[in-house]
């Protein structure tokens, strides 16, 4: 079976600045790979290039055996649902004018998978799965706490039935107690669904706890790479 994600010699440039300089790594289903490093080290640029939200200037991104960098936008479209981003700012990533229920339903509608009869139940099921009472579907993002909003963002990502989640600082804006709940949720979802996580985070303690492997980035390059958790040592 092909690897979930195989990145080779990835390059991202912004004008004269090389933000990502020949970065290579791979990720299996059910595994968490953390990208750690200071602001400006290229970790978020790497994430955007993996998602093909910012087309890379060089290198290869293999996803479930398909090479993404050579695909047209049209050819990418059916693959996009399978790789979903979750961003840092839970309020900024949900439209303030849409109810939570509509935000979670939107991917299903866009992808032509919306069924007027079963759709609402599917949305309720997704909200329940991320630990939100389905009644929260009636609310707007500003009526939710930061942690609840981040859960809603995860529910929206799950609606597409992804295989890979690209989590860009998903818990950095949250209180420690709320952060713990969201990390537990992500761990449960991974165990249950076998999702691969590309986990971008600048908090070393969180990274040490949560990731299977950690890649440290600095000035656009990988400065070190290590195994954090051996599968036998930390039973799930």
């Amino acid at each position, binding site marked *: 079976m092909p690897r979930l994600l195989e990145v080779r010699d990835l390059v991202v440039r912004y004008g004269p600045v090389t933000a990502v300089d020949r970065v290579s790594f791979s990720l299996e289903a059910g595994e968490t790979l953390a990208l750690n490093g*200071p602001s400006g080290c290229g970790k978020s640029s790497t994430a955007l290039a993996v998602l093909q939200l910012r087309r890379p200037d060089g290198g290869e991104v293999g996803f479930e055996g398909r090479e993404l960098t050579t695909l047209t936008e049209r050819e990418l479209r059916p693959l996009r649902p399978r790789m979903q981003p979750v961003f840092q700012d839970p309020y900024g990533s949900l439209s303030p004018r849409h109810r939570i229920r509509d935000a979670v339903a939107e991917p299903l509608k866009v992808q032509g998978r919306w069924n007027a009869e079963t759709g609402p139940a599917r949305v309720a099921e997704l909200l329940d799965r991320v630990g939100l009472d389905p009644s929260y579907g009636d609310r707007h993002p500003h009526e939710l706490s930061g942690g609840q909003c981040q859960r809603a963002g995860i529910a929206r990502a799950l609606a597409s039935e992804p295989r890979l989640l690209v989590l860009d600082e998903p818990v950095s804006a949250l209180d420690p*107690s709320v952060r*713990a709940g969201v990390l537990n949720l992500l761990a*449960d979802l991974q165990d249950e669904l076998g999702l691969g996580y590309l986990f971008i985070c*600048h908090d070393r*303690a969180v990274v*040490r*706890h*949560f990731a299977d492997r950690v890649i440290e980035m600095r000035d656009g390059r990988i400065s070190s790479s290590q195994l954090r958790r051996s599968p036998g040592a930390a039973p*799930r």
Partner: protein
Amino acid sequence: MRSEALLSVRDLRIAFDGVEAVRGLSFDVRPREVLAVVGESGAGKSLTARALLGMLPPGATAGGTVRLLGETDLAAQRGRRIALVPQDALSALSPVHRVGDQLAAAVRSVARVSRREARARAVAALDRVGIPDATRKARAYPHEFSGGMRQRAVIAMATINEPDVLVADEPTTALDEERRDQVLRVLGEQREAVGAALVLVTHDLDVVRRHADRALVMYAGRLTELGPADEVLTRPLAPYTAGLLASLPEHARGRRLPTLPGTPPAPGALPAGCAFAPRCPLAAEACHHEEPEPVPVDERLVACHRWAQVPDLAVELFMEKPHASSS
């Protein structure tokens, strides 16, 4: 404890439309100390910080007293004896004025000195926070500064009039660890240089551990626990403090982290008795009827009926029992 106060807060109450968000908070800030104010979002930390600066948001009504060396008009002291260290350095500086002019204006707002003297102090302040070639940089605009230099410039601005108290509300939340430690180091150096106390509002317990002398833990607008930071963080007396500590990654068992069950109550929808009781593993009958008042325990204050029942390894209260499945 009381006699050493530089800043004293007594029965502070802050309400919006009659609903109290800060509910009778009393504490002191001692000269030259770093007092961390911790708690979850909505606990009233930021409102308390704003009350210290006389900067409450529109619509807020305040009761109780805040006294800085006997002075109660805190807004009049802002920029002189008490100063804010802003969270967002970019929006704290005017984009259309030179950095040095902004610092000089801060000097001239409180002291009758010549423009030349104010400008000299501005350059000296930029130099103190480690901005290279400060004379030239003083003539630059904020957009010509890097993010780290802007952060230093606002610290220079906050300390330029040598205040007695600095108030910083989540000064490092948006920063990565390297920048965070750098900002806190510069802030610490300047605080010591001018002999100011620092009230540091943060939800980062690692910052508290490394930078605070004392910690004030707030929950639902009240004091939960106040004491030396190392004691509060290593042997909490209040179950709520224990719950906050338990959720740190270092307490993970396997992959799951302990969490505080439930969510904080909304102001105006408080339970009867102790506001934390519905989430508390030690709650007893009395906790659901009577709100606990802070009582002294050794060097600390704790507001909890059950503090004597909190085990030495208090984080154990929140450890999950092993379970077969989480779904």
